[in-house]
């Protein structure tokens, strides 16, 4: 089965080598098309004017920060249930990318909010949930960094990721509740029932471009992580070879 074939890091690296140039090319094409459409063919919105163009990067970034967490959650299940050797590599390399996209969603959201709401930040339900998500990404990254052994760190991060995945709907629900208590719903909403097709098409193309970008970066980061673990394993072996006994206990294969 293909899924288990690529559990072998070497085979996975070979696959990356083949797939990556194609994915990169597709991603560049999608970005070219998407950017052209969002700047030249898409009309300005009657309500938001030209600021609607910020949506073409804000919405895909927001979509990706959730998709990235989904990828991490699936990888965490892979770590804990199937003990798939690449699952924690995938989870670890997805976290910084997810954090970057979350950051982009927040920044573009507040840059859109300044002309629309008159302020850079409102404690709007969605913005607040995304901010919480950013804190969770950064916390996970810190957990990865502080733990020495990548296997143990992978398992700890997997537990936290899954607890976070359980908690995110609860957080979303409670932030919505908190928001309706404290704020009159008078802000301009993007998610009306009528998104004009002229706006929808560039949005869709940009979303595809961002998704491709995520996979390109994710594969590259996974490759780096595999190499990093190889370096670590080789160093440990070298150390245990020069000081037999002392370091032998710690020189476990860490790939």
């Amino acid at each position, binding site marked *: 089965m293909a899924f288990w074939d690529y*559990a*072998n*890091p*070497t085979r996975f690296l070979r696959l990356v080598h083949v797939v990556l140039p194609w994915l990169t090319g597709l991603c560049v094409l999608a970005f070219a098309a998407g950017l052209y459409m969002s*700047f*030249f063919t898409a009309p*300005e919105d009657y309500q938001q*004017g*030209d*600021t609607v*163009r*910020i949506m073409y*990067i*804000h919405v895909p*970034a927001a979509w990706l920060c959730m998709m990235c967490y989904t990828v991490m959650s699936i990888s965490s299940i892979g770590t804990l249930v199937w003990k798939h*050797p690449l699952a924690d590599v995938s989870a670890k390399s997805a976290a*910084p*990318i997810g954090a*970057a996209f979350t*950051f*982009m969603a927040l*920044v*573009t959201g507040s*840059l*859109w909010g*300044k*002309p629309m709401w008159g302020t850079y930040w409102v404690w709007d339900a969605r913005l607040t949930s995304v901010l919480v998500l950013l804190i969770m990404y950064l916390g996970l990254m810190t957990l990865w960094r502080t733990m020495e052994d990548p296997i143990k760190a992978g398992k700890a991060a997997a537990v936290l990721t899954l607890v976070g995945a359980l908690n995110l709907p609860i957080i979303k629900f409670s932030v919505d509740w908190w928001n309706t208590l404290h704020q009159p719903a008078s802000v301009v909403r993007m998610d009306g029932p009528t998104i004009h097709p002229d706006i929808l098409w560039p949005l869709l193309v940009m979303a595809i471009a961002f998704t491709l*970008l995520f996979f390109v*970066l994710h594969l*590259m*980061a996974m*490759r*780096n992580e595999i*190499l*990093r673990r*190889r*370096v670590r*394993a*080789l*160093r440990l*072996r*070298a150390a245990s070879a020069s000081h037999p006994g002392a370091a032998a206990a710690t020189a476990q*294969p860490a*790939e």
Partner: protein
Amino acid sequence: MDLGTHAGFIVASYALCALTIGGLIAWVRLDKANQERDLKELADQGISRAASGFGSTRKS
């Protein structure tokens, strides 16, 4: 191309996104260069996966 009264905000958000994505790409490439350099250094010292049969027979 006229971006209207809020051109600054639009340009700023696109520029920041480009910077962030550029940063990600730079991070990934630098990291790759670092790891490959380390692997090469180790190989020069005679420590490599091939030299000891490391990884060729072992599962995962």
